[in-house]
């Protein structure tokens, strides 16, 4: 493969590195050096069957080919509150991958949250123990995000602490009219027996073209119970490439729900490593792709040890020229006996021109397992529509009701107070535009 694109990015990096002072944190710099080495041999994947077939339907090479400005030290983030989620919680504000003042908040129960750069400075031993430990060395996007990261989110919940309030991450991208790239790395550490909930709100500021590339690492300790909900409501020019690595220890429970409402191209990569016996994972998602939107959710649920449970449910609707891709893999390692894994993807395709692609995969090397997946692609049920119309419901309303019912099953799974209603309202709003 010709490397002109990669070389352009390396040049861009060198130019940027020359202008940077020595102000940065040694820990982050060490990872940055490693990332540069990795990036020099990795490639930004083209669409196709390479890279273990992870990019079969989505071309990310084009996304990284634009001549955008690289978001550097951002102006202090003063997030616009008008769009804020009506959810009680600890707020963490990001603008273009930066945390503004780079501060950490410490609660009396030992919880620490805020800027990853600040944490690397103030809690170096803690950050060092976890930062860049879960990422795949072959993952070009985690290397790129480590290379250019200025900051990111850091959340630490110590042993045995159950944090009652959710963390609300308000992650904005865009800055006036300028097209930009921004990169970030995020770190979440949940110690043994802890419990926490997070809401991650991805928003755009303005309508300019943006590309946000971020990688997060989530370490879930023994018996910890974590729930994470993400919603994407980016502008029609915004591209997001996000990678997630979750490692679960013994008897831990990690639940995630992702709702893709708006954005030009949303690519999610989630790798879950079930490394402790008895760990439970639930990964759910909703994708509502209209116009020319392309949403691609790729998961890799890795059962490394025995007696773990995982379940996945993804529902997608595509209309206009929209594309919804679900590509999920369940991997069961040799000797990961008594694994119970389930995967389901249902797609609705509303008109000619829309696309639904699904690739649910099982890769199993142990025999005492219960693994299954189901995938369907279809359309609204004409009989149900007819039934509703007979009862005086307009065609439009009947269609809306059916789509709403279709996605509600997934959106209603969150237990964060008030959030399900918010998500459902957003879903209805989007459905009306499908």
């Amino acid at each position, binding site marked *: 493969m010709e490397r002109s694109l990669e070389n352009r990015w390396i040049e861009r990096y060198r130019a940027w590195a020359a202008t940077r002072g020595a102000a940065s944190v040694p820990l982050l710099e060490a990872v940055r050096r490693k990332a540069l080495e990795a990036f020099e041999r990795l490639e930004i994947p083209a669409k196709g*069957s390479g890279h273990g*077939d992870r990019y*079969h339907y989505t071309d990310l090479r084009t996304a990284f080919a634009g001549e955008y400005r690289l978001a550097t030290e951002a102006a202090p983030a003063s997030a616009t509150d008008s769009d804020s989620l009506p959810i009680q919680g600890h707020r963490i504000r990001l603008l273009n991958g930066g945390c503004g003042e780079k501060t950490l908040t410490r609660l009396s129960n030992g919880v620490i949250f805020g800027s990853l750069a600040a944490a690397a400075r103030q809690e170096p031993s803690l950050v060092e123990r976890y930062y860049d430990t879960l990422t795949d060395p072959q993952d070009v996007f985690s290397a790129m995000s480590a290379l250019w990261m200025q900051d990111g989110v850091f959340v630490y919940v110590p042993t045995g602490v159950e944090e009652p309030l959710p963390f609300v991450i308000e992650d904005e991208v865009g800055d006036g009219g300028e097209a930009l790239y921004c990169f970030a790395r995020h770190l979440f550490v949940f110690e043994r027996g802890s419990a926490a909930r997070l809401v991650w709100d991805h928003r755009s500021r303005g309508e300019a073209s943006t590309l946000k590339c971020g990688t997060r690492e989530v370490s879930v300790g023994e018996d910890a119970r974590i729930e994470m909900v993400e919603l994407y409501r980016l502008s029609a020019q915004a591209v997001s490439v996000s990678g997630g690595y979750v490692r679960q220890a013994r008897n831990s429970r990690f639940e995630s729900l992702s709702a893709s409402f708006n954005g030009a191209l949303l690519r999610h990569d989630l790798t879950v490593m079930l490394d402790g016996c008895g760990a439970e994972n639930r990964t759910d998602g909703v994708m509502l792709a209209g116009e020319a939107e392309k949403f691609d959710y790729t998961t890799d649920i890795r059962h490394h040890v025995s007696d773990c449970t995982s379940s996945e449910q993804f529902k997608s609707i595509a209309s206009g020229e929209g594309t919804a891709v679900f590509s999920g893999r369940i991997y069961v390692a*040799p*000797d990961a*006996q008594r694994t119970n894994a389930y995967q389901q993807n249902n*797609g609705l*395709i*509303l*008109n*000619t*021109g*829309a*696309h*639904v*692609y*699904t*690739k*649910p*995969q*099982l*890769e*199993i*090397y*142990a*025999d*005492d*397992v*219960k*693994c*299954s*997946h*189901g*995938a*369907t*692609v*279809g*359309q609204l049920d004409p009989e149900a529509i007819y039934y509703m119309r007979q009862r005086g419901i307009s065609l439009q309303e009947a269609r809306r009701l059916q789509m709403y019912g279709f996605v509600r099953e997934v959106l209603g799974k969150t237990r964060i107070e008030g959030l399900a209603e918010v998500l459902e309202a957003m879903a209805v709003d989007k459905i009306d535009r499908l």
Partner: protein
Amino acid sequence: MEQQDKIWDDLTGSDYKYGFVTDIDTETIPKGLNEDIVRLISQKKGEPDWMTEFRLKAYRHWRTLSMPRWAHLDIPEIDFQDIIYYAAPRTKPKYESLDEVDPELLATFEKLGVPIEERMLLAGVAVDAVMDSVSVKTTFKETLAEKGIVFCSISEALRDYPDLVRQYLGSVVPYTDNFFAALNAAVFSDGSFCYIPKGVRCPMELSTYFRINAAGTGQFERTLIVADEGSYVSYMEGCTAPMRDENQLHAAVVEIVVLKDAEVKYSTVQNWYPGDKDGRGGVYNFVTKRGMCRGENARLSWTQVETGSAITWKYPSCILAGDNSVGEFYSVAVTNNHQQADTGTRMIHLGRGTRSRIVSKGISAGQSQNSYRGLVRVSRKAEGARNYSQCDSLLIGDRCGAHTFPYIEVDNPSAVVEHEATTSKIGEDQLFYCNQRGLSTEDAVGLIVNGYAKEVLNKLPMEFAVEAQKLLSISLEGSVG
């Protein structure tokens, strides 16, 4: 439990029943592949110029390609220059009656359980026996000829029906299709050609036996079946190879053209030599099979029982171009010891109201890897297309792998596509239930495996179903009894 372990052990201990080498003089050409070899093959077969040109074009294209690596297979490097690309039994090329056939050759078929005479008498099957590369014996040709059915080797067809061959050869699997299809187009030695004229229902099952015999020779078969409007044919293909230490390459191409209202059933029982217990030897089976339903209401059904080969790379596919055409794929794939299989199908829905159905049953034992890989694509224009896929995997033993890689691509809003897959082992409770009723664990496993594969075995023609069941037992011998 201990008894069960013993059964799993036994299961990897089953030896290949068809391992023997026939001592017939074979005429071969030098090892390796270049334009001269391609010309030589073409010349030896006395082919017309356009055919030589076709081969050369394919060869030149092949040189630009590299081995596909996307399958879930661990394929050792293959030295394509270390293969003999042509081997013909050095006996008289044609026989009038069975007496003229080399008795040793007949004995080989005997050992294989291909009773030509018996089939002629009892089953009423016309057998076009292909040994190494040249078709040696074609039977029942006259009966078929009365109906206007052409069933002969592809080299005869090139001589007698050049226009038909030229019209359809490469129309479903062009030489540009993939690495192995290009290689096959360049060097194919022989194969079968079948043409069913308009409105004719072929009165008997057509059958071909493939067999790799000479050491170090690759087998590059090319099969072309054309079912003209409103016709029907059921075609059976069975494969065995004698035991060999080094790996042998088999890269066949099967093309099927189904015209309006016609129906083709293609059944395969494949038990090439799978290698020994330690994964030494065995056939590499890299096959491109594809059919095109060209006309309205055309039907194509693939049924395969795959028990052999060290490595299987095979995706019998249907291109559903005609409106309301139907594609079916039924598969049982068994892997044992160190076998690897990556097999499945592609259903490409192009026409309106097209339907397809996929039933795949994988059984992995020993240290084998068994993957289903399938694509269902519904194009923009395929109004009302319908697909149902079911892929089940059964694991026997804890050292093997079972994988499922379905691809579903829907671009039409009226399509309904469903896919289901499960992976499990034989339930302790099922075994216990059988044991309680006086069945030994071996019999119970046999019963369960047979029941599991029944849905597919039922689709095979009668003569084959019996053999397939026997093969299942041999492949899983020890556990099945």
